[in-house]
């Protein structure tokens, strides 16, 4: 039981809005789960809550990772425990180069400055040797078929939507987390980029890594095969199944799910989820 992320009875609100209303989900290391749901159903809210975003208030429920209470920890501590979030909308950090950012986050997770080191010793702290880091970065950039020139650009500044998503995957490859939440990493990628990114994800995957992949599209799931598919509706996981569930969703839409679970039909807003790509 120590190798799993367990979400139970999770209730989350932002401001006066209750978004998650008792969500249960368990992801074990080595498993790939897909989470699907209409726009605005709370997928990103779940991802942010798992990572510790300060705006999302947990009203009830628990999240444990390898038996440890995750909700009690700030975001950086969660990251250090092996949790990673690939953002749906990654932020730009002007003036900080990709190489410098990657080296910083690698050091934060794999070469942390010992807490008790202050003064002289702390000044000498430099983390991973530069040459060793360069090699790691170049290897991972090649894996994702990223142009090496991205290393000297500023983080996400002026990046296209697809380039941002690739940088998220590069970060994941560099920090090698044990539990990754990918929030619509496939959105905004062109056909070739999707394949490259999926190849990168597959190459980063290991039996020690669990994945919760948030997506609207079947196509990504053709490349990165999930063992489990879940549907988020009305603040809860209302339906779970195997890979076939994603095909059923694509064929029948979310109103079909609502019917199945006895929820009223969706609003126009929710029904107009981004066009799914037809399965082959």
């Amino acid at each position, binding site marked *: 039981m120590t190798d799993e992320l367990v979400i139970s009875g999770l209730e989350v609100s932002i401001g006066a809005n209750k978004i998650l209303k008792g969500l249960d989900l368990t992801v074990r290391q080595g498993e790939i789960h897909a989470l699907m749901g209409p726009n605005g159903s709370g997928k990103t809210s779940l991802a942010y809550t798992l990572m510790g975003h*300060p705006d999302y208030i947990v009203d009830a429920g628990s999240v444990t990772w390898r038996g440890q209470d995750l909700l009690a920890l700030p*975001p950086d501590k969660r990251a250090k425990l092996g949790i990673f979030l690939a953002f749906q909308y990654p932020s730009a950090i002007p003036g900080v180069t990709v190489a410098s950012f990657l*080296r910083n986050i690698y050091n934060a997770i794999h070469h942390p400055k010992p807490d008790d080191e202050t003064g002289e010793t702390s000044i000498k702290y430099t983390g991973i040797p530069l040459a060793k880091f360069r090699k790691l970065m170049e290897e991972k950039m090649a894996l994702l078929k990223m142009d090496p020139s991205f290393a000297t650009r500023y983080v996400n500044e002026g990046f296209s939507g697809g380039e941002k998503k690739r940088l998220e995957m590069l970060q994941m490859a560099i920090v090698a987390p044990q539990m990754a939440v990918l929030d619509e990493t496939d959105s905004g990628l062109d056909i070739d980029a999707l394949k490259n990114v999926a190849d990168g994800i597959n190459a980063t995957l290991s039996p020690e890594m669990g994945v919760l992949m948030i997506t609207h599209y079947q196509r990504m799931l053709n490349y990165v095969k999930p063992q489990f598919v879940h549907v988020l509706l009305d603040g809860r996981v209302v339906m779970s199944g195997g890979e076939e569930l994603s095909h059923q969703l694509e064929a029948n839409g979310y109103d079909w799910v609502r019917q199945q679970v006895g929820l009223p039909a969706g609003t126009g807003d929710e029904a107009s989820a981004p066009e799914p790509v037809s399965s082959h």
Partner: protein
Amino acid sequence: MTTSVATAQTLDAEAISRISDHLDEADWLRSLRGEWWARASATPPPTGDEEEWRRTDLAPLPRQGELLVDAPEVAISLPGGAAEAGVVVSDLRAAVRDHPDLVQRWLGRSQGQASHAHFWALAQAGWTGGLFVHVPRGVAVDGTIVARTVLDRNDVTYLPITLVVAEEGSSVTVLDEVVSPDGGAAWYGGIVEIRAEQAAHVRYANLQQLGDAAWNIGAQRVVVGQDATVTTLNAEVGSRVTKLGLDVDMSGKGGTSRLLGMLAAGDDQHIDINAHQGLAADHTTSDLLYLSALYDRARAAFYGVTTVEVGTKQTASYQECRNLLLSPKAGAEPIPVLEIMANDILRCGHGATAGAIDPAQLFYAQSRGLDPDAAERMIVRGFFEQVVAQIGDVAIRERVLAALARRIGSTEGMA
């Protein structure tokens, strides 16, 4: 040996001549000081009603400190070959002794910025140390001239002069540093004059690390000749109060100036900059970029005026002042002003911002394992990159970043 001539309060014509006695000065310098003393007396200090002085109250300026007459020698490191090529870099007192004709030709020749005229004149009359750099025609100095003034007292008044003259077609890079001890309320009134003659290239960086109670009342005048290029960088790290007048005279056709500033302030520090970019000749370019990171209760004011003179053609200018507020009690007041009196301009613009770090950025960095302090440090360092990227000289870049680290934290590991 310590000699006492006066305090800032008791300074008079006689005290000024006692400086000359003490430094055993020639007649030309005695009378030059006398002339400047007359101007200082005739130009009253600011009252606080002037637009440039509204944001800094001069009443608490420590005037009781003795004038430092035995100032420490400026420690100079000169790149190899420069001396052989005829470049003179020396403590100003030594330059007066060793190169009297050269110093006489350049010292005390220009008027200061109108708003800072009193303090400009005061330093011209009462200087007791400083730096003199002279690069002869056509000489390009490879490497960086580093001049370091380390004051060991924090209870004195010190009014040094830095004078940099680059003759026609020459090229030079200077780092001018000052350090003083924390604790006492000293008055540091250093003035700087930079003259780039026709087609000369000057890069001048001023790194200010005065003690935490010091008052820094400075003025800089930059004269950019025809087709000359001057880049100045002011890195303000120390002092309790810094008030700096920065006057750029673009009177040579085709001249270019880049005015860069990096301010990192915390505690109760107060920094107030008045810039004046005077575009007075055709095809001149002057771009200013000042960045401040403000912690605790620190405050930064910036009042910058760009003047495009009547009849000038095709000038280009910009002023940008951006402030990052890292505490709810920190504050910034950036005020850019454009006075455009010509019709035929290429560009003339300004930008001013003041705000906190975007919380989404902080969360993004924290989600990658950086604790809140490390995340903030990285974002602040990124904020300064806009200026850092323009510092071509590696030695200057490293010294300035190391000094800034005192306030913004170490950015070691940021390759």
